[in-house]
């Protein structure tokens, strides 16, 4: 076949022969092994080098068509995926639809099958319902990358978070990470818990009890009520965005009071006995969960997370695309 003539960087070719993901889709971190995650990281190392070169593009996904289906609003995740796809030379199509206009699953399967019928190999999907990506993977013929499904998982976010920790500390194993904020409605929290634990980190959560799943401890996670205690415990604090739009009940009286109790500012950080790392999946509500002087400080690696996001997504797409080609050959 024509595309086999394309010469890829030799080190990547070698990896592809030696290593393969244990899964056919990226639906959630809980379906991955620790080896899968290491493989994605190793691959991301390569892509991170590439995207820092003057010529950022590689032909790895030439002849692969990727559809980005966003049934929920997204700016940065969509942009990050699109950049990753384009830097891998994939053909990219985009579909966006507000959650409200997609009524029932019939529409979802039909919509996606319509797009697949146009010979799409991979689908990156964001959807407001938990398990939507799992559901699609069982009903359509394409590789699925979950870009966030309701309150279930957001695997690429967790991968890039863990990758950023690995980048800063050399390894994730043994690190103490606290996730702060709305754990109840957070797919980022859930994926992070799975990912960090698989890599040997210790994870705690901190936030108002109204925003904690009652059975969170069954995931092997400790709930620390007090922000200062949580920050003193951890090496890294991953601070979540307070998503007022995803709350159907009032879980706390006001943003002002949330910021008073769980907002992180310079004063709290300088009162700690060590220097911790601050992470945030974005977009930040400045003055709510983080003050600007914290978000913009050297302790924060928020922009590194964004940069690593592209490399991680390239790695994931590349590894899954390998499986597309094999089936077709």
């Amino acid at each position: 076949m024509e595309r086999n003539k394309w010469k890829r960087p030799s080190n990547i070719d070698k990896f592809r022969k030696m290593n393969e993901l244990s899964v056919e889709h990226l639906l959630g971190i809980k379906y991955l092994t620790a080896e899968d995650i290491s493989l994605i990281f190793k691959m991301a190392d390569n892509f991170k080098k590439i995207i820092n070169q003057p010529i950022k593009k590689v032909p790895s996904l030439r002849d692969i068509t990727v559809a980005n289906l966003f049934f929920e609003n997204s700016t940065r995740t969509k942009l990050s995926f699109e950049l990753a796809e384009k830097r891998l030379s994939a053909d990219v199509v985009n579909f966006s639809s507000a959650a409200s206009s997609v009524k029932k699953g019939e529409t979802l399967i039909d919509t996606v099958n319509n797009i697949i019928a146009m010979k799409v190999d991979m689908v990156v999907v964001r959807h407001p319902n938990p398990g939507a990506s799992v559901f699609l993977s069982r009903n359509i013929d394409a590789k699925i990358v979950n870009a966030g499904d309701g309150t279930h998982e957001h695997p690429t976010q967790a991968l890039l978070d863990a990758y950023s920790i690995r980048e800063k500390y050399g390894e994730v194993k043994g690190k103490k990470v606290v996730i702060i904020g709305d754990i109840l409605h957070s797919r980022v929290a859930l994926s992070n818990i799975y990912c960090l634990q698989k890599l040997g980190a210790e994870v705690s959560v901190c936030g108002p009890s109204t925003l904690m799943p009652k059975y969170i401890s069954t995931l092997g996670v400790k709930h620390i009520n007090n922000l200062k205690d949580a920050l003193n415990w951890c090496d890294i604090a991953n601070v979540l965005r307070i998503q007022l739009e995803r709350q159907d009940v009032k879980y706390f009286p006001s943003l002002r009071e949330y910021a008073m109790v769980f907002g992180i500012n310079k004063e709290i950080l300088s009162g700690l006995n060590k220097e911790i790392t601050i992470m945030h999946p974005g977009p930040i509500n400045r003055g709510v969960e983080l003050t600007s002087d914290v978000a913009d400080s050297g302790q924060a690696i928020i922009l590194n997370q964004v940069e690593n996001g592209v490399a991680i997504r390239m790695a994931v797409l590349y590894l899954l695309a390998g499986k597309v080609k094999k089936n077709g050959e």
Partner: protein
Amino acid sequence: MNILIKSARVIDPNGKHHNKIRDILIKNGIIKKVAAKIKEAKVKIYEAKNLHISIGWMDMHANFRDPGFEYKEDINSGCRAAAKGGFTGVLLMPKNNPITDNNAQVEYIHSKGKENIVSVHAAGSLTKAMQGKDMVEMYDMKNAGATAFTDDKNSVQQNDVLKSALLYAKDFDGLIMNYPNDSSIANGGQIHEGTISTALGLKGIPAMAEEIMIDRDISLCQYTDSKLHLSYISTKNSVSKIKKAKKQGINISADVALHNIILTDEQITHFDTRYKVLPPLRSQSDCTALIKGLKEGTIDVICTDHSPEDEENKKTEFDNAAFGIIGLETAFGLIGKHLSKHLSLAEIIEKIAINPRKLLQLESTKIEEGDTANLTLFNPDIEWEFQKADIQSKSVNTPFIGEKLKGKALAICNKGKFLEV
């Protein structure tokens, strides 16, 4: 129809032939003779290996979706499913379109089921359009044949509405049923709140949503000095609350849906919508407590909660999928497989035939000379595999296709008819 049933073991715990092998002669819908050996010329003979016989089984909670959703099920297809499963009677829940909230709807259902071998009983809704506000014309509907009143899965949230209904029904001995589920606590939940809901990010229905309302219902029942039937009990604490109330002499009864006894939320690990039911599948300790509750008599009835759904309502994202599975055809085989080690055959028959008939004040038959022949014939030990081809229902929303079951209905006898199933 005249028939001679040969060598059947009679399971009739309150009758004089209980656990004995008998020949039974039926003429024109009446049991003419029960004896160790009957010789009768010119009569059809029915015999089968390991033949057992009990009074006809009665499902206290079934949905036949007729009128309104006949593409999922109608009264005829539902009756075929019931017959196949060995049920000679069903109580149909009111959630149709229009809702069974007036005497005309009750009459429609009864007239459509009239010719069928399965006795169709309509439950009326408790409130108009099942809105939980205004009581239906219960007296009129009872006269039209409504056997019980319930808003089914739309649990009555407002305390004073249930209080009034309990008081009002006292005057004509109507049966009020309520599914305890506090909607402000359950609030859009999809599965049991626990490890699985946490791991999958699915919204949980806390056991507390049920238990908090059981407390209320018991208080209301005690205050009104009325009787109340609690439907679809699913938690360990619910069982102990009901046990305590019964001990205090409060006139309360309860049922459980079969799938809530034999399945847990572990089934949902892969977002499998076939296991999405309400009340949700809970934990193993809940199942164990429910079985104990049945054994001790805290729970009176096992129902199927037969809930046909079309493919579109199940093959969809979990949050959008409908609750419910079909259950009539698999009920007895599943009971045999999962419960026969805990409950005796006589106890099983009590839960699926005798108690529901008592609670619904239906003609209480025995297997004795002169009684109406409303009977189920079965083999409790036969092992078989449930196949899609066995499904008589219009819908196929069951997780049990391919499942090995133990025990099967062989024939039913009702309304002067005899049908091998």
